[in-house]
């Protein structure tokens, strides 16, 4: 199928908006922003910046690098931000920032979304490698809801709290209890707390709600059976997880374009700034070339939980690690002072964050017109101690919603192409990454493996083979590892046939208590030996996926796609993911596949 015809098909299906964004563009990728110039002989200050503020920080860095302020005792300073999800950066710092060729240079300044991450790092390392940082700007955690849904709960006249959300999430009648059976069950979106600050903050709020506290949460509280059950109940309402809220926002926005946003998700835990971006028509806060903002049909409303909430304070943390020199440390402080100036804090406000400089009062765009309230929140939940935060992450790993995942691996001939100078093929790297990713599943998660290519023999289908059936991974982890290792490259790439077959199989065995998903990795374009029906096959697959994923009574099976290597059909894979309100991941550089697999599995 030509790109033009496929794009026309996507337009017809209303999937362009979602297909044009990929999860890796938003999340843990180590992309740099659109930075001008070259550092030359300047003192380079590398920054790891959480994804939602990369555009802002890149703009500030460009201005700074071009200014006379970028000076330390006569030497010029060059600040170089790179995008890195807070939790991913935290883990990299704990690990000593391995693989800089893949992960980007180790940072001098780390700016996660919230200071709490520094405590997690220090707790895990055992020393203070991440000293207290200076907050740069603020944004509170809110519950984003489509306006009609918030109104159905009585908001804003009636306060809404975490407990109300959680009660609704556990109500078997769902929205019917509020007179809206057409909205189906209550669907909660929250991110993986190991990666995302809003995920960490919401999970923390869960435990506060479970204990009835607003401060003083202890590790003993987390271990209370009632608290554990409460957390399990909340997590059971989750659509899926993920490394970034932007996946939810992009999917919501795409669903809104088709008029189905009310059945994709009922509420998503996000930062206030994201509600502003969404309602301005720019759900990921990052307009791509040629992209124009389009206000949604149904705007979101930021619900500020009655019990209080947690803030993302975006600290500038100058790391105390062996890769940071005294000179870089001093240069970092020069940039830190620069961004706190009132004129730069005005920019913070333009981007929808609350300035940290009291000389710059909160104003537009933090307005009711944009779905947010400058006079909220009125109370806060206490940031837990680092030990409790680590305890929350550990507890979440136990209590999170279980997953039922079919991994579908391309073993076509092109997977035998060399990917490294050491003679490793693309398939070798993919197999290693897939095996590594298995460790992220908990024993009760169900995982299976299919491989696909043309000329498969000894299988009911010539296009794929069920290597390991979907079953609890605790019973078959070794079998999966062994089966993955045994694969070798074969022939063609029957992409559409396999997508449809895998989807039908997962739908047939659908389990409403789990996240049902397919992880689909391929390096090619559809090649089943019959190009004449490609267009029809593509349209049929997309329509099937979309029909099964939308509506109040839908049984969503999310298809998370990975385009692997330069030759992958990225547009088609994006469309497949968008049709199931999942996410597409870009591993066009095979060396990144480890990291990409980690990000994909963060959805479960």
């Amino acid at each position, binding site marked *: 199928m030509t790109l033009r015809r496929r794009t026309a098909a996507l337009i017809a299906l209303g999937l362009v908006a979602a297909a044009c964004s990929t999860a890796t563009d938003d999340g843990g990728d180590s992309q740099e922003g659109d930075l001008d110039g070259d550092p030359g002989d300047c003192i380079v200050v590398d920054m790891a910046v959480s994804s939602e503020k990369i555009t802002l920080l890149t703009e500030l860095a460009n201005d700074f690098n071009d200014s006379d302020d970028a000076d330390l005792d006569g030497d010029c300073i060059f600040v170089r931000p790179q995008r890195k999800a807070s939790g991913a950066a935290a883990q990299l710092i704990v690990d000593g920032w391995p693989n800089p060729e893949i992960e980007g240079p180790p940072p001098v300044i780390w700016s996660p979304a919230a200071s709490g991450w520094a405590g997690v790092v220090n707790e895990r390392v055992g020393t203070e490698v991440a000293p207290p940082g200076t907050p740069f700007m*603020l944004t509170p955690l809110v519950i984003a809801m489509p306006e009609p849904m918030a109104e159905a709960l009585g908001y804003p006249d009636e306060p809404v709290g975490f407990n109300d959300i959680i009660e609704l999430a556990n109500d078997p009648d769902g929205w019917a209890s509020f007179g809206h059976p057409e909205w189906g069950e209550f669907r909660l979106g929250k991110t993986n707390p190991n990666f995302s600050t809003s995920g960490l903050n919401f999970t923390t709020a869960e435990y506060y709600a479970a204990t009835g506290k607003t*401060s003083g949460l202890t590790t003993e509280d987390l271990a209370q059976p009632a608290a554990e059950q409460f957390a399990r109940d909340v997590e059971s309402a989750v659509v899926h997880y993920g490394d970034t809220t932007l996946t939810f926002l992009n999917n919501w926005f795409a669903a809104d374009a088709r008029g189905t946003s009310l059945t994709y998700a009922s509420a998503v835990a996000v930062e206030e700034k994201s509600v502003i971006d969404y309602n301005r028509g720019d759900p990921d806060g990052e307009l791509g070339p040629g992209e124009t903002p389009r206000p949604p049909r149904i705007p979101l409303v930021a619900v500020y939980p009655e019990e*209080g909430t947690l*803030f993302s304070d975006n600290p500038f943390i100058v790391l105390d690690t062996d890769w940071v020199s005294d000179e870089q440390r001093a240069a970092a402080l020069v940039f830190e002072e620069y961004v706190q100036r009132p004129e730069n804090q005005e920019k913070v406000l333009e981007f929808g964050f*609350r300035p*940290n400089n009291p000389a710059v009062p909160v104003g537009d765009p933090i307005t009711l017109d944009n779905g947010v309230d400058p006079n909220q929140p009125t*109370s*806060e939940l*206490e940031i837990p101690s680092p030990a409790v935060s680590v305890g929350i992450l550990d507890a979440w790993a136990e209590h999170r919603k279980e997953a039922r995942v079919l991994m579908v691996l391309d073993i076509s001939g092109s997977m035998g192409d060399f990917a490294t100078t050491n003679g490793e093929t693309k398939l070798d790297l993919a197999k290693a990454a897939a095996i590594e990713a298995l460790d992220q599943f908990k024993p009760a998660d169900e995982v299976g493996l299919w491989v696909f290519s043309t000329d498969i023999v000894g299988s009911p289908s010539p296009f794929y083979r069920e290597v390991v059936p979907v079953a609890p991974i605790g019973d078959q982890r070794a079998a999966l590892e062994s089966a993955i290792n045994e694969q070798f490259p074969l022939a063609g790439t029957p992409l559409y046939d396999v997508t449809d077959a895998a989807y039908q199989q997962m739908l047939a065995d659908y389990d409403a208590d789990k996240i049902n998903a397919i992880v689909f990795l391929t390096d090619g374009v559809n090649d089943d030996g019959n190009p004449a029906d490609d267009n029809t096959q593509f349209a049929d697959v997309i329509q099937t996926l979309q029909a099964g994923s939308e509506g109040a009574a839908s049984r969503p099976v999310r298809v998370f796609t990975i385009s692997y290597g330069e030759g992958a059909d990225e547009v088609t894979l994006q469309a497949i993911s968008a049709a199931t309100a999942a996410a597409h991941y870009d591993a066009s550089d095979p060396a990144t596949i480890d990291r990409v697999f980690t990000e994909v599995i963060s959805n479960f």
Partner: protein
Amino acid sequence: MTLKRLGALVAAIVLIAGAWVLRTNVLDDDENTGGGGASNELDVLVCAEELAAACNAAGNQVGIDVRIEPADTTLRNWSSNPTDELAPNGWATLQPLPEMAALSRDAAEDPLEIETVEVSTSPLVLVVDASRAPLLVDACGDPVEWRCLGELAETSWSDIDASASNGTVRPGFARTPDTAIGQLGVGAALLGAFDGAPLVGNPDVIVWGQPLVEAVPARSLVADTAIGTIQVRQSALDVAVGARAELINPDDPRFTVVDVEQPIDATVVIARPMGGGVPDALRSALADELTASGWAAPSGESSVPSANDLLNTTAVWENLNS
């Protein structure tokens, strides 16, 4: 002596005389030798974090390097570092921190005389969430009694007034001991609440102080100070203790400024080891910057706790925190 040599001698005398005139008329004009004695050039102004903006601007104006650091770090350095090391430094902070350093050195039998020049002043006040202020005043009077404020910490606002919305009373101080304004606020509260009574080992102090310490943990402060925090993150606390001048917009409708009993002043000083002298140009530039941000000229009658009292109250607060 040849004519050439005579010419050289005259030239040398002229140069020496010129240098003397220059020093007398220019440099000496710029120095207030305060406590007398030989003057040392001021190389670096070490400045408390909460005064950073004014210090940086003043330093730029007069061409003096400025180093920003927590007031407590400077206090420790001046309490123990060799005199020679401190000689080229000036210290911009609040009273009575320089006196606290001198007192600590006396106790360690390593005395250091310190001279101070007052720069600006602002009264210590409470900046209160406007919707909560009437409740606070009803409960604790106007000016607010410190003892009462501590007793309310972490209780529910609805205990004061049944119609009040949810939430606990959260008075917050600037980071203590990191900031000078934090040490001053905590000192005012403890001294005000336990007027004349011993603080160390007093169980009443523990019962009273613990909720006050826990009401707003230091990690909730996004700015260095409580008043800085409440202006950018109003939900973090509802009563902020600090200098009135920290409130950027005195007419901000979100807040009400309430006085405290036994009023004291936050008085900015520049300190130097005795004989160092504080350049008038620096004092004046810093005063101008502070005046522009709401501080007032010192009246000469500032009310400030004694150095001994503040050493004591800061230590008590740290114990409550531990």
